[in-house]
């Protein structure tokens, strides 16, 4: 049966991502999901923007399109409408997808084109050297927020849901099986599915915020879901009367799923039914 490794372009490997980069883990999970769904990726298109996460499509043996910064969703919309039978997956980063590409994200969600958008959120612009990103949390240090970031950050999942995405989920590099399950359901979903994946940048963001290297980031990333942090907050604390402030928590798994007519259905476009799932 096909394995993730079979879907790689071996002549291109090893890839350029830094040692311990979370993106590699997410790519690993994505290829395992695809390996379960397809013998080969003839009927799969990976469309990516510009940035570390977008470079991974180059290493996948599929129809891969490396577009311009922030604009992947526009190219993907055209490709999907032209060839509805293709399973089109858009790979974007937090800078590429929420920074320069934010406008296209909310419109793609509104249109509900049958695409699956996987946003790699490592809270920084990795490719250009660790600058501030729309998802960088407050007080975090980056090369363009040397005094600590003061801007509030997006919650990508909430934004996508508000813009009309009919499937919204969040995964974590540290929890590959949860991530695979979430991606599987996203690909099965008819309509715009948005998956935000918490991953991390070891070379810049990790180093500047003393979060450590690969595995250290994975463990610090193991932010738990709401129940655990609520439990921790109301436990008796020893020294600090106000107890430990509740850590910022991201609920994981499928956060929203509803069935709305996709753009293709509302237009009555042909060829829609051929897409076998």
């Amino acid at each position, binding site marked *: 049966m096909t394995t993730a490794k079979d879907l790689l372009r071996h002549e291109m490997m090893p890839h*350029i*991502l*830094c*040692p311990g980069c979370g993106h590699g883990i997410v790519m690993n999970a994505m290829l395992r999901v695809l390996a379960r769904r397809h013998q080969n990726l003839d009927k799969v298109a990976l469309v990516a923007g510009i940035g570390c996460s977008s*470079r991974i499509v180059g290493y996948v043996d599929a129809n891969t399109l490396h577009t311009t910064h922030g604009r992947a969703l526009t190219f993907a919309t055209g490709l999907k409408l032209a060839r509805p039978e293709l399973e089109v997956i858009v790979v974007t980063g937090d800078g590429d997808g929420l920074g320069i590409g934010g406008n296209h994200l909310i419109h793609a969600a509104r249109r509900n084109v049958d695409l699956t958008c996987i946003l790699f959120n490592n809270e920084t612009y990795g490719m250009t050297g660790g600058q501030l990103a729309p998802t960088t949390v407050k007080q975090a240090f980056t090369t363009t927020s040397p005094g600590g970031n003061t801007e509030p950050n997006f919650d990508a999942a909430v934004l996508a849901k508000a813009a009309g995405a009919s499937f919204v989920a969040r995964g974590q590099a540290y929890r590959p099986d949860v991530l695979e399950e979430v991606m599987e359901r996203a690909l099965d979903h008819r309509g715009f599915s948005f998956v935000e994946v918490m991953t991390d940048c070891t*070379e810049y963001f990790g180093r500047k915020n003393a979060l450590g290297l690969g595995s250290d980031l994975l463990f610090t990333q193991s932010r738990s879901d709401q129940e655990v942090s609520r439990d921790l907050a109301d436990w008796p604390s020893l020294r600090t009367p106000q107890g430990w402030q509740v850590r910022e928590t991201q609920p994981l798994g499928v956060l929203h799923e509803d069935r709305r007519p996709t753009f293709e259905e509302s237009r009555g476009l042909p060829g829609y039914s051929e897409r076998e799932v």
Partner: protein
Amino acid sequence: MWRKEIRLAGSGGQGLGLAAMVLADAALRAGLHATIMQSYGPEARGGASRADVTLSDQPIANPWFPAPRILLALSQKAWDRFSPKLGADALAIVDLDRVQGAQGANVWALPFERTARAELREKVAANMLALGALGVVLEHIPQEILAETAQSRAPKGFGQVNRTAVARGWQLMGDALGGIAHVESVGP
């Protein structure tokens, strides 16, 4: 006129950026001209990172060069990446333990990291040891200026370590050459 194109190559975190700044700054203090072209972006990650330093007694028009006259390689990946492009008359200094398979007439393999770890208790000082060795071959930057620059630009708490490392590197290379034999200048 005297001109030397030098490439300092190794893996990320070995302090090559700092070594380039120290070398170029020492050249300025010795009355020479110097330029640096640091690699960055995807190449700098995933292992091989490099800094190209050009030294000359005349103003330097082009800081870029296709292949270096002197290659300093502190990691296997760097040696594998940059040694094929070396010219016949080029000269190479490599770390004995970290680089295997570096032979050739004018290739010197010296135990920079091992000496740094054993004598200076700081593995990361290998870059300054390598700089000391380089100083011998360049013959245009006095050891005192190189050591003094290495100390002044050292991160907090590493000043003395850097100074000793340069001197020790100078000695390592001197011994390898069998006393301070004159190295005829390479290239035009």
